[in-house]
């Protein structure tokens, strides 16, 4: 059985419909729980007093809303590209799968570039992690999320590279590929809340 036939066979013969290995979901839910605590901490600080509420509102207004919106659309697009890549992986069209994975990586890198641009813009304005309570949380939370994006990009790159070799190994199995795509969607959905909390709540 050749590589493509093996992948199609593996991908279409998973009896249970649990996307990804159950162990992987422990990692996903662990991460989601940690971020939940961060989101709640942010909101509690925001409404601690009238003074903090004003500081947070001013912080939101000083952020570049356009970059935040573009970054959200970029991550949504990359998530959609990953969905298509997984679909082509299952149908055995590996060339298209690699193309869409590379497009998702490109979008991820675009997100990273815009985030770094935003950080530099703020630092040039004299706003750093110690500026006030809002920016302390802004740099910390978006920094942790950026780390997740970088891990996701690395995993997608590994998948695309291993697929291009067309040799079956641990990085080309349906379990690993689905795991990486699920991780990337998790990174996307965490950003959706961060975007609402930091950029939209005025």
């Amino acid at each position, binding site marked *: 059985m050749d590589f493509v036939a093996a992948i199609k066979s593996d*991908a*279409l*013969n*998973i009896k*249970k*419909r*649990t*996307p990804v290995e*159950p162990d992987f*979901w422990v990692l996903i*839910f662990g991460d*989601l*729980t940690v971020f*939940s605590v961060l*989101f*709640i901490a942010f*909101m*509690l600080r*925001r*409404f*601690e*007093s*009238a003074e*903090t*509420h004003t500081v947070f509102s001013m912080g939101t207004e000083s952020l570049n*809303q356009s970059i935040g*919106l573009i970054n*959200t*659309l970029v991550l*949504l*697009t990359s*998530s*959609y590209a*990953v*969905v*298509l890549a*997984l*679909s082509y992986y*299952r149908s055995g069209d590996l060339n298209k799968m690699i193309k869409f994975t590379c497009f998702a990586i490109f979008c991820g890198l675009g997100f990273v570039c815009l985030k770094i641009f935003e950080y530099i813009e703020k630092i040039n304005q004299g706003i750093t992690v110690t500026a006030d309570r809002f920016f302390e949380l802004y740099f910390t939370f978006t920094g942790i999320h950026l780390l997740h994006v970088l891990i996701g990009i690395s995993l997608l790159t590994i998948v695309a590279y291993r697929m291009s070799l067309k040799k079956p190994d641990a990085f080309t199995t349906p379990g690993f590929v689905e795991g990486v795509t*699920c991780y990337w*969607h*998790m990174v*996307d*959905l965490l950003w*959706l*809340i961060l*975007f*609402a909390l930091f950029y*939209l*709540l*005025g």
Partner: protein
Amino acid sequence: MIKPNSKQQCSMVFGVLVLITLGAALLTEVSILPIFTNHGFLECILISLAAVKIVLIAEYFMELHDAPRWLRGTMLTWVMATTAVLVSIVLFGGQTAMTSLA
């Protein structure tokens, strides 16, 4: 045999996600409308819209809509619990903040 999501279905979900994102961004621009003068109303809508987007991603992109009940239930519980706590903080915390301002 697994039933992968159809591309058409995922394309529609992607379109809806983009529309909700643009709609949420637009909402912050029209927050001067009288309906938004109630403290916390706009914040609650924005958090709820983010929750809707998360459910769509989880259900269709992460393929949880035909996953086992425990997995789907855990994800939905996480989304609903986090949203409920955040909205509660806006509603009750907002009142406290405004009281201390007065």
